[in-house]
């Protein structure tokens, strides 16, 4: 049988035959595609300006590039907020980590990681009789600036609450795609140094408040001799947590070693005070427009 085209393919009534021919068609198509690419690469190797021209002409359209206009992007912060004690008065953060009541192993493991990552943190086992409001009160009496509550359900860590003390606000994020350190190949071990913090893409007014929360968890002065970086990268309202150690190999090359863990946060709710009136809440209808992002 000779060359097949899509029209003849439609006329074939035997499904198996049709599938076979379709696979053949696809294979041929792929082959020509690869050949074309090779030829183009060869051509472009000889005169690189062609490549530049092609790349300039064919900018792919992504959801990010088609993002809906938001007038709150890159606006100046106005007025005062509850993080002023960190940013203006320079108060050192002091963090308490705890879990949900009756937590299982995974929650404790995650808590141990958080204690390792965030400096000046202590862990306290959760007691069922204390609510978040009670804990917030005890913590603010003991000069803590933040309370972190890790939530675990069916032995999977699925949420994290940040309560800024003494007067809120409260942030709740869901956690997905958690990969522990030992599952990452070639991972290193973090040291006790204060890491540097990289906050990517928090542009809107809401994003700024989230960024301020993460900033206020880490002391002002990173210890550069530790060469550790915590990255919180926001893309399409998902916040990716990564931790690395860098090394300057020579004047041009920089090496990165992942320290782990990896996980993804998604903002679900911001509440005023300690879990009081809602300032912002994720609802499914907010995602009706695929190209609208809030952080």
């Amino acid at each position, binding site marked *: 049988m000779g060359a097949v085209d899509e029209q003849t393919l439609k006329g074939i009534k035997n499904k198996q035959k049709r599938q076979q021919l379709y696979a053949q068609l696809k294979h041929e198509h792929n082959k020509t595609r690869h050949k074309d690419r090779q030829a183009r690469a060869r051509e472009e190797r000889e005169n690189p300006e062609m490549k530049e021209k092609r790349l300039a002409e064919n900018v792919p359209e992504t959801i990010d590039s088609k993002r809906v*206009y*938001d*007038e*709150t992007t890159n*606006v100046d912060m*106005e*007025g*005062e907020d509850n993080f002023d004690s960190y940013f203006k008065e320079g108060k050192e953060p002091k963090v308490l980590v705890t879990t949900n009541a009756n937590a299982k192993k995974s929650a404790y493991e995650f808590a141990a990681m958080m204690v390792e990552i965030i400096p000046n943190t202590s862990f306290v086992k959760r007691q069922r009789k204390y609510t978040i409001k009670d804990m917030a009160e005890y913590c603010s009496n003991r000069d803590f600036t933040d309370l972190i509550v890790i939530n675990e359900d069916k032995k999977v860590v699925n949420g994290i609450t940040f309560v800024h003390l003494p007067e809120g606000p409260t942030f709740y994020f869901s956690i997905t795609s958690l990969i522990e350190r030992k599952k990452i190949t070639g991972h290193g071990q973090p040291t006790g140094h204060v890491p540097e913090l990289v906050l990517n893409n928090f542009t809107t*007014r809401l994003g700024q408040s989230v960024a301020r929360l993460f900033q206020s968890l880490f002391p002002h002065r990173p210890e550069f001799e530790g060469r550790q970086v915590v990255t919180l990268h926001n893309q399409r309202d998902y916040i990716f947590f990564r931790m690395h150690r860098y090394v300057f190999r020579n004047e041009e090359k920089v090496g990165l070693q992942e320290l782990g863990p990896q996980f993804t946060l998604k903002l679900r709710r*911001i509440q*005023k005070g300690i879990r009081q*009136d*809602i*300032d*912002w*809440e994720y*609802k499914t209808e*907010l995602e009706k427009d695929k190209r609208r992002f809030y952080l």
Partner: protein
Amino acid sequence: MFRLISPATFAKPGFGAHTSKPADDASPAQAVSITTHAEGNTRRSKVLQLVHSKQTGNVIVSRLNGVVEVYDTSKLEPAAEQAKDRVEEDKGSTGTLDLLQLVYEHKGLIPPFENKDSETFIDLLVDDAGRVVVATNKGSVFIWSGEDKINNEPVKFTLPLNENEIVESFQVHPGKENVNCVAYGGKETDLRVVKLPSLEKTKKQKGQPAIIFKAKNLSNSRLELRVPIHIKKLLFDKTSSPNHLKIYAFTQWGDMRFYDSALGRKPRFSVLVLPKKASIIHAIWLDGKLVVCDNTGIVVKVDPSSGSQISKFKGHIGTTHALDNFQDSILATTGSDRYVRAYDNETRECIVKVFVGTQSNAVAIMEDTESWQDRRRRKYTPGASREEGMTRANNGEQREEEESSDEEELWNKLESNITQRRKRRRLALA
């Protein structure tokens, strides 16, 4: 501090100002002028309530640090090539203009706010007799006989409260002769209506407020559990009188309760108006219906006789702190999402949406000088002097006209689309 927002030019008639749309060729400069007034205040002295007085046009505010202030709005006439549409307030501080002049001020009415047990203002209103009334959560009521008297010492009453009772909602009876009749309620403080002694008498001899109506709680639930009381907002019915009280109470749990003093002390009905049992923050009358907002971003119009939901005003995220009714035709909202919105009452269309930078506590529409007719005239005869002080009755008609022409346009567009599509289909078939 205040923000004056004036959508100076409108992109399209029938479409107000939206700062959330970029300015481009299709919709040229959506100039929205936002000016800031009464700057220099911090969060400790943020505005809690704001009232636009119908009699004098002044703006009265109460602040967290126990100050009551009156601002003169007479300089806000659209002389500065800007039509002032609304005043909006919030916390923070920047700005330079001094169009809003502070005319009267009363400091130290209550001690400044320290913690959650401190005394704070819960409501500020101008009653139908022109008196300024301020109430606090500890049950103190301060009354001035007029805005110009605010510099003087007010008459103070103490509402009858039991121990540990807190007032969260306060309302004065409508009608010029009934203003001494006030209702209040709060957390575990069931609705009470008291008659305050009149101001003239009080100056001579101290009178005490007398309770004229005390509500009873609902019957126990089917499981014989007590129904909690937590009144967040009170509204009097239009037909209410001191002898025959009709009151709507809105609760923390999303209920609307209707009390009728002629028929008994228990609520006549209690309906869940918000499906999620969210806390009701504010409620106002709008064209004979009630508009209720909660702390999760829901603003709904509710039928007062049945409590059933008529329609929704969509687009809010988070708590809506304030609502304002402008001549029963426009609803203004603002809250923690840092936007001020205005909706057309009939079409429920969002006609104005403006980003204001900070979260706001109160909103009031001052005027809509740029009437629809005006805008149209300017469009056709550029340079024509703007007629000031458009009569307001006029506006309604003009708006309807505009809408119908809009509708026509829409229909034309739709029809042309349909015919085009049909043509295309016919071609495809051929």
